[in-house]
Each structure stands twice: as C-alpha cells, then as structure tokens.
C-alpha cells in the first residue's frame, strides 16, 4: 500500500488539476493487486459494475482485491488500450479517475481495432 507521498513522486498525472473529485479517493489503490486489502476497494468494485466490467456484486461487497476484481481490471485495461497487468498501476488508475461518459463500456457486439 503506497504512502501518500509516493503518488507525488511517481506521477504528475495523478496530481494534476483534472483529478476527478468523484473518484479522487481511488488513488490510494495504486499498485494494489490480487490479495491486497485496502479500505474503500469496494467502491472501485462498484465503479467496475457501473461500467460493465463486473456482472454482479454480492450484497456484502468486500475491500479485498479478489479474482473477480482482477478479472475486471484486465478487461478494463484491454478495452481501453492500456498495458494489461491485472494490477492497479499508474496508467490504469489515472484512466479510471478521469471524468467520463456514463454509458457502459462493455455492451458491444462487434469491435475493430486499428
């Protein structure tokens, strides 16, 4: 789990003015991966549910980085053209925290990559 200072050292992206107030708290998940337990991770699971990367959530959503979350991260990274690491790396978290359209990302039937 990174210290608050490490974000400043590692990234100008996460400290830029465009950080999104709504998802600002997600920056504490930097470098989280399978097995991590970080308070608030359940909110990230809800984010992935909202945008179509997790089909359904349990009633009691936990703050553990489980396999379902890892799968969602991989799908997110693949869909949005990010390096596929399965971890909440800097590129991934920066993308997650950007303001965006509210429509789901994953309802497509046909895609073409150029």
């Amino acid at each position, binding site marked *: 789990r990174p210290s608050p200072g490490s974000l400043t050292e590692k990234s100008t992206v996460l400290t830029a*003015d*465009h950080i*999104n*107030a*709504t*998802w600002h708290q997600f920056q504490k998940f930097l470098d989280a991966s399978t097995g991590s337990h970080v308070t608030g991770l359940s909110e990230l699971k809800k984010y992935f549910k909202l*945008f179509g990367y997790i089909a359904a959530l349990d009633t009691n959503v936990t703050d553990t980085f489980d396999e379902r979350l890892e799968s969602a991260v991989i799908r997110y990274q*693949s*869909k*949005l*053209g990010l390096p596929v690491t399965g971890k909440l790396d800097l590129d991934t978290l920066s*993308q997650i925290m*950007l*303001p*965006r*359209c*509210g*429509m*789901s*990302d994953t*309802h*497509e*039937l*046909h*895609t*073409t*990559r*150029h």
Partner: protein
Amino acid sequence: FAYFPGEPRWNRPNPMSLSYAFSPDHMISYLTASDMRAVFQRAFSRWAAVIPVSFYEAQDYHSADVKIGFYSGDHGDGQPFDGVLGVLAHAFSPESGRFHLDAAETWAVDFGNQKSRMAVDLESVATHEIGHVLGLGHSSVKEAIMYPSLIPRTKKVDLRVDDVEGVQALYGSNPNFRFSSLLASETSSNQ
C-alpha cells in the same frame, strides 16, 4: 468501434432526417441560447458530414427525435448523475433519443471565457453523446470521439477513422464524404 446489443439504429425513410430539441425545463442558465444552439449544430453537423442523415433543431421538445436536457442527481432514468466531474453525460441507444448532461458540471463553450479548472467542453461531450444516439458504443481507440473519457479543459471534436467506419457501417456513407480527406487530416494531427 462498438455497437449496442442488436446494433440498433434509426429507421426512417430516405433521405433520413432527425430532429433534436432542448428541454424547456432542464437547461443551464450561464450559457446563452445562441451559444448552446451553435455548439449542438456543429456537433450534429460533424456526424451528418459522414453519413446520409441530416439533423435539424425542432421547436417542439416532446415530438423531437432527440431530446437534450441538463439534469442533476437522480433524474428518473435509473442512471443518476454524481455531481462535479465523475460522469459527465449519457445518451441512450436508438431510437430512444434521450440525451442527458450532468447539470453539476461547469460546461464551457470557450475556455477563454470559462476559467474553471473543472470546465468541460460542451461540444466535445455533445459530439460523443450523439455517437451513442446514433448507435455507437465506446471505442478502444484513445483518439476516437467514442473513447469514454475526457480530460477537463480539453477539446476533442473531430471524428476519427474509427468513429466514421463505425457509424457508416450503420447508415452508409454521405455521398459527399471522402475518406481521403479524413485520413489526411488524421495523419496531419498525429504528426
């Protein structure tokens, strides 16, 4: 590019013409009506340039094909807005025509006049949402209009090859459109 399940599209007699109108009750007061109309006219015209579909502003909101409004929080469609930034807008697949923008955002038509660091370019978001209205889903191509995110205080309004190929597969090509001009423009901007 991507589509909604079933690849829904507008089904109208040729030549296809779709109307749009602004909600009489759900607008924002700090942008003038003329600025607002100009922004949407430009956004619709970009799509109309590549497909054989024209758009016109209608006066009667309730009978318009595309209904545009600014809403806050839970506004009754099951997809509540979340305040400043976060989700900026959403629009539904054909032939719903619902086009909703989050009233909590600081919408800008000119960053010279709108100094907020949180300002969001209305024309960029409008162009993206019209893509949904026409039947496009989110693209994986970062430069495409249909990529889902937008950085505040940035303008992204030009359709890319990915957007054009996607929408033309649904509606066909505007006879006046030339792919070569788009490719030249895209190559130039990439350089």
